[in-house]
């Protein structure tokens, strides 16, 4: 697989999607689908493209960890919990239930629910910035929901891990690793900070290695790479420079991941139909959970509608979970649902003000006519 060619295709798509103010993620996946097994079969994945794809998701999760500052999170834990609770409970159970009804097994349904519960932080936060919504109180709640979901991912990776031969040992390893990284997070900036302020190649080399260390941990200690990457990021979150160094690597590798993922997926028609149903449930779930959250926090259904419409888009995390743990037709279903909800979500977030006005007018008319 020619990496330069993949990069070029993605660069062109990125320019085009920015012009059309659409999220680029579904474009990368679609291009991969069209050129790969599902479509014309011109391109095939190989070992190199698989490694790059793996590096892409590991860097994404490491980056998420870097942005989860334990100190700041624990300061806001109440706000984050109250914002993210309904989002988790409603969306997870709804998607789980629909998946069971659609004939998936419990394990598959759990994976699909994990994947499609989580919104795309990248699309959601970008659209808050681009649509100039940062002044609103609803936007703050949306941001807290994203933080809640970032934390939930770590848990969902562990719960979806198929390595269950010795569950007790596995849980002990996870807990020991979590405790160790949490404890080290208080000392890392002091111990390693100096290494990352040098002006030679050492900071870049170290940051790059740290970002990929999760993969090595999986091989040696049999704990999921994604989880390790988040925790390592969290451990190093006190060192500001790492974020800046890792960002460009993450951007490049993640884009290639979406494209290579698209190439490797063999989209089945059966999975596609399931995907359509799941996409509908995914959109409805977020709108409902948003409205309930808004009602709960601000006593306003309309505020809640805004929260819901802003969080519809699914993306990188859904694809990551299904890439890491999916095997059968659930891959097709989730991929389809992600492509639909990401585009639709960007559209809904952009037009949320209009939709809110329409809904409130409609509600008023209904209300006055029944009087």
């Amino acid at each position, binding site marked *: 697989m020619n990496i330069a060619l993949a990069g070029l295709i993605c660069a062109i798509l990125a320019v085009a999607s920015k012009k059309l103010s659409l999220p680029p993620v579904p474009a990368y996946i679609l291009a991969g689908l069209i050129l790969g097994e599902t479509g014309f079969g011109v391109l095939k994945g190989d070992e190199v493209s698989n490694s790059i794809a793996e590096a892409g998701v590991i860097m994404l999760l490491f980056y998420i960890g870097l*942005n*989860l*500052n334990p100190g*700041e*999170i624990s300061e806001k834990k109440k706000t984050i919990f109250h914002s993210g609770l309904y989002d988790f409970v409603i969306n997870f159970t709804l998607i789980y239930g629909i998946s069971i009804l659609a004939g998936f097994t419990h394990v598959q349904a759990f994976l699909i629910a994990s994947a499609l519960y989580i919104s795309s*932080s990248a699309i959601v*936060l970008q659209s*808050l*910035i681009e649509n*100039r919504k*940062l*002044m609103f109180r609803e936007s*703050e709640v949306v*941001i807290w929901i*994203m*933080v809640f979901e*970032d934390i939930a991912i770590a848990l969902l990776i562990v719960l979806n891990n198929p390595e269950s031969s010795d569950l007790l040992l596995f849980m002990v390893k996870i807990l020991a690793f979590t405790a160790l990284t949490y404890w080290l997070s208080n000392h890392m900036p002091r111990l390693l900070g100096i290494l990352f302020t040098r002006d030679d190649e050492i900071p870049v080399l170290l940051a790059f290695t740290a970002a990929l260390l999760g993969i090595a941990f999986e091989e040696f200690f049999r704990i999921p790479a994604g989880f390790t990457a988040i925790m390592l990021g969290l451990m190093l979150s006190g060192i500001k420079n790492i974020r800046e160094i890792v960002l460009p690597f993450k951007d490049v590798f993640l884009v290639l991941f979406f494209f290579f993922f698209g190439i490797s997926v063999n989209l089945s028609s059966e999975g596609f139909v399931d995907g359509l149903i799941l996409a509908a449930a995914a959109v409805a779930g977020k709108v409902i959970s948003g409205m309930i959250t808004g009602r709960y926090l601000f006593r306003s259904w309309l505020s809640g509608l805004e929260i819901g419409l802003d969080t519809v888009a699914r993306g990188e995390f859904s694809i990551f979970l299904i890439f890491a743990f999916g095997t059968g037709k659930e891959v097709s279903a989730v991929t389809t649902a992600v492509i639909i909800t990401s585009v639709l979500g960007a559209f809904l977030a952009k037009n949320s*003000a209009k939709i809110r006005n329409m809904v409130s007018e409609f509600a008023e008319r209904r209300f006055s006519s029944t009087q």
Partner: protein
Amino acid sequence: MVRFIGLEGVGTKYELETKSGDRIAIIFLLNRRIQIYIQERSCDRPCSVELTETEAKRLSSVLGGVPIEKERESVEVDFMGVPDLTLAMHTYTITKRLHGKTIEELAIRKRTGANIVAVSRRGKTIISPPPHLIFEEGDIIVVIGDKEQIERFEKEIMGI
């Protein structure tokens, strides 16, 4: 009253409400751009602008009420933690008449009370220049001092 809040993955937000009930929000994005929202009390939707770092600095100078000219400009710095403290810094370009002289020789501090805190020479910045630094024509100097000290500095040293 300013409210300050960190927004994970987005940036930092400052919110303030004026006495008349108008609202302003300023968000420093992670990509170093700055979004400013203003909302009139009677208006249900805010207006917004997005600025680069330089534009934002310009705006802060304008809001600080200081003259903006290329040759002579000044910047006022306020500290959130020390509300009563305002520092004004002024810039001047060294003219031919000061070329070749040192800070010591001019006895700037003794004669005027003002202090030179930085010199910018051909794109390089010298912070806290030593007293034996020799001025060159075209140097841009940053001077700190209260109103009277600055007036004396302009009159006695710069000859304006």
